[in-house]
């Protein structure tokens, strides 16, 4: 089953460059799809298009289709708020909101209008457990989210997304600011989570891409050069440009 079907997606920012050009791909459910490629390839742009977060950026033009549950979410009529609840996102830098740990995790639910203290408590605990943070933080929930380590902050950001029980989790270079130990924890977590979620990951290096990919998409200057299973991509790339990049002779 696929979660997204992307057809001829093109995006152009105010600078007039086509940051994405006619992308066609499908994203499988309950698997990790990795987007990789050199800088400015359009990976972040692609991710932000899927949850319409690019509405906040200087987008000039957007065309094509992104089919999610049979609807083209690029339509004006899409309920973007509902969409973003179903498609969570973790960013390259951990960005805790300037609130307590508890409020960070409960944020999405509170915004949704959930005020039942019991339900919130439960959701916060569940989310923190899934992010393997509960044992570390259960007695500090009212502390500022800035009082914990960078690795913990990033897992908190993941927990914050999990609390909304989304269908899809997108992660844009989630470990670029973390040390190897914290990175390993996140990677382990993602491997557990893919049983229940659709995961789209833009890793910050090719090693992580190779480690994590069930499916892999190679983006180069706004184009999708190659899309296949992870194994094929990294052992047996078809396109010459992919070969060069994967073998480290590129960018």
């Amino acid at each position: 089953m696929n979660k997204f079907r992307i057809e001829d997606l093109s995006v152009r920012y105010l600078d007039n460059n086509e940051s994405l050009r006619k992308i066609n791909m499908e994203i499988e459910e309950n698997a990790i799809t990795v987007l990789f490629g050199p800088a400015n390839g359009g990976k972040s742009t692609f991710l932000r298009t899927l949850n319409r977060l690019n509405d906040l950026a200087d987008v000039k033009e957007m065309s094509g289709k992104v089919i999610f549950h049979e609807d083209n979410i690029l339509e004006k009529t899409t309920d973007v708020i509902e969409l973003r609840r179903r498609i969570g996102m973790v960013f390259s830098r951990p960005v805790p909101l300037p609130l307590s740990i508890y409020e960070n995790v409960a944020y999405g639910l509170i915004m949704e209008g959930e005020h039942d203290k019991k339900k919130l408590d439960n959701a916060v605990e569940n989310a923190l457990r899934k992010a393997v943070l509960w044992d570390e933080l259960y007695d500090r929930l009212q502390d500022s989210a800035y009082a914990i380590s960078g690795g913990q902050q990033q897992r908190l950001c993941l927990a914050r997304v999990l609390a909304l029980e989304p269908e899809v989790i997108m992660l844009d270079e989630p470990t670029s600011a973390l040390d190897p130990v914290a990175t390993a924890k996140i990677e382990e977590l993602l491997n557990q989570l893919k049983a229940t979620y659709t995961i789209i990951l833009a890793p910050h290096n090719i090693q992580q891409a190779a480690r994590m990919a069930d499916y892999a998409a190679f983006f180069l200057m706004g184009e999708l050069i190659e899309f296949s299973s992870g194994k094929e991509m990294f052992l047996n790339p078809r396109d010459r440009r992919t070969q060069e990049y994967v073998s480290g002779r590129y960018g």
Partner: protein
Amino acid sequence: MSKQQGNLVITGIIKIAGYSSIVFVTLILIFLLREGLPALGSVPISQLFSTIWYPIQGYFGILPLILGTLLVTLVAILIALPFGVCTAVYLSEIAPKWVKAVLKPVIEILAGIPSVVLGFIGILVFVPFIRTFFNLPTGLTGLTGAILLALIAIPTVVSIAEDALNTVPDSYRQAALALGVTRWQTIWGVTLPAAKTGVLTAVMLGVGRALGETMAVMMVTGNAPVMPTRLNSILMPLRTMTATIASEMGEVATGSTHYQVLFFIGIVLFLLSLAINVAASWVSMRQRQRSERILS
């Protein structure tokens, strides 16, 4: 009311508030014109721009008032400029951090002192001083007003000039220092020139402050509507446009010629300040953008 509607209402209110400043500027202009333009019908233009202001006898020449304002403002800015820019240079380039931390609030204190308080001190301190120092019949002179105006303009000049100096990238200074240029030469040869549009803006806004100031000048300039034609006019009583409005508006009948002319002076002041502020913002037009791009 549903949440969506609530959101719409709030957004609507915020949007209206956002446009309110345009509404108010327009309203101000409309009411000044409404009350002041009839002056052109009541007083012939040639008379309006003549040299005698003596409303009781029907003389409504606003030239001495305009020149009075210009002269006092000019002298004030000539005083404020060196003090203001020097202080800004000191604060931004020379002073150690803790000195800066102490001095900046002091400048802010000056900015906060009401002009009527400065006027009061002017009467009790500066007026006698000017009289004895220059051996004049009266200390209520243009110069006295200019000194007070300089005090009023200095905080504006200092803070804007200092901002401008602070925005000069450190790499400029380091590049100059690396070439073996001394810090002193760097300040005057590199940093200050790099900040010159900012300093120019500071001066223009300082002029704007001085031009529009009312109470302090009214209290110490003697309020004699004479043409400041000679060099030493600054050591004699004179009168500004603002002081004229403030001191006479209370006594005129609504709608009378005198009333209309006072509003007409208001129009002149409005246009002058408009010109200065538009010019200053044009000079300093820096595009403001969000400091970071969307997270990627």
